[in-house]
């Protein structure tokens, strides 16, 4: 039972990292990034390509891939997403959704749909004794790293000048500009940062999940549910809901496997009925 709960948190770690990136991007740009899953997939492929073509291993990939994808994200924001500011959110949906399909198809064209091989880093091949039970070391690492990253982002947002500006721009972009802050200067790095988080989640997934062009599209639907449950644009909410959903689906699989497909969405519906802005969302943020 405790082991299963822990295991749920490991699954939740991926949701949390992805939802965090989505929340930061939505907050700052007002864009629901439907291409987020594609960048998660590119993260896993990035790790695979580095190893396969350049002999660069997992640990370096953990840094290189998010940085590269972050830069790609920044370029994308500059070239495409920026042009949508002030337009109906529907355009943002169309652009990012189209982008997701294009990225997915480009990877498929090159690598096909079959999954690619990626070995676990040797250092984390074993199991760790966690007191109550043994657990695969790699998964403990995934949980720890994602907790550290989420915690660091939280500190960055709440304790630093940059975080203050991001929070202000997220909450009242117009006023923030009128107070002398060049909000658009911060939009590009924030978008890149959100993409980098998706890339990081992808690298972490490479050793334990199937690496194929479809991996992101399947996962991202659940992540959207996570973001909605946490409260659209709420950074803390998205992380908390990520781990919560990991936990709920693990225990759901255990006790009511027949519901495992739908449990997350039932939960989402229940939360929306009870708190339409999500668990940690601000009511006025939705109107």
């Amino acid at each position: 039972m405790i082991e299963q709960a822990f295991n749920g948190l490991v699954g939740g770690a991926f949701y949390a990292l992805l939802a965090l990136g989505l929340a930061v991007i939505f907050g700052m740009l007002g864009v629901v990034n439907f291409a987020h899953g594609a960048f998660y997939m590119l993260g896993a492929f990035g790790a695979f390509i580095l190893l396969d073509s350049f002999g660069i291993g997992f640990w370096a990939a953990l840094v290189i891939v998010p940085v590269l994808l972050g830069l790609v994200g920044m370029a994308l924001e500059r070239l495409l997403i920026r042009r949508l500011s002030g337009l109906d959110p529907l355009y943002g949906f169309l652009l990012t959704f189209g982008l997701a399909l294009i990225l997915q198809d480009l990877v498929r064209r090159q690598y096909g749909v079959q999954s690619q091989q990626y070995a676990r880093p040797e250092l984390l091949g074993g199991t760790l004794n966690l007191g109550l039970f043994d657990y695969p070391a790699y998964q403990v690492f995934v949980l720890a790293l994602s907790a550290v990253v989420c915690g660091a982002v939280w500190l960055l947002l709440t304790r630093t000048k940059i975080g203050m500006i991001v929070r202000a721009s997220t909450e009242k972009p117009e006023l923030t500009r009128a107070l002398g802050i060049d909000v658009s200067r911060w939009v590009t790095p924030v978008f890149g940062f959100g993409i980098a988080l998706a890339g990081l989640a992808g690298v972490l997934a490479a050793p334990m999940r199937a690496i194929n062009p479809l991996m992101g599209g399947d996962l991202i639907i659940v992540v959207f549910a996570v973001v909605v449950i946490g409260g659209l644009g709420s950074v803390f909410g998205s992380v908390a809901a990520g781990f919560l959903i990991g936990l709920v689906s693990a225990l759901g699989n255990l006790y009511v496997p027949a519901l495992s497909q739908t449990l997350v969405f039932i939960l989402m519906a229940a939360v929306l009925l009870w708190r339409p802005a999500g668990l940690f969302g601000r009511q006025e943020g939705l109107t």
Partner: protein
Amino acid sequence: MLTVENLSAWYGEAQVLREVSLQVAEGEIVTLVGRNGAGKTTLLRCVMGLHARVGGAMSLRGADLTALPPHRRARLGIGWVPDDRGVYATLSVEENLLLPPVTGPEPWSMEEIYAAFPRLKERRRSPGTRLSGGEQQMLAMARVLRTGSRLLLCDEPTEGLAPVIVEQIGDILRQVKDRGVTVLLVEQNVHFAASVADRHYLLAEGRVVDALDNAEVRARQDELLEHLGI
């Protein structure tokens, strides 16, 4: 200080400002008086650069503002106190104060701010929106004072506040004026306007229909109140 020439503005097809021209001299407090929908708030937003569809010209101390984005205007020394007070819920009181960059040569220090607004000091760690309406108004004003802005655009700072707080705000505005700061004030409260301001523009249907001094305001008080529908 601020010169507005032939300013027009539209919301969609509807024209809300029609060739408005006005001038505010250095160190003056000038009010814009007019009914709801006369275009007062839009005028302030145009000066701030927040309204997209405008025609005409604006300059600050001879520097052309027309093509500048809002954050550049703020950095030239324009401080905006919006009608909804614009207090950030996700920022603490202190963060609300520290967020905008210092733009003027004589910014208020945090000590001065807290001395002038002791409630803000007490509540400095709480989220901005936990404050009462009056406290939020104080916070919005304190925020632009800390930047050292030379021109304040205050949008109905007394709206919905208790008389004792309205009086405090009047004190602050006079204090600000003593430091040589210029204020363009949107105000429905004619008494209050006459008690703090030097001159007044009367706006109706997007036009400046009259320019008045304090003596004229007092003389024509009844007529004005009737015009404002109060």
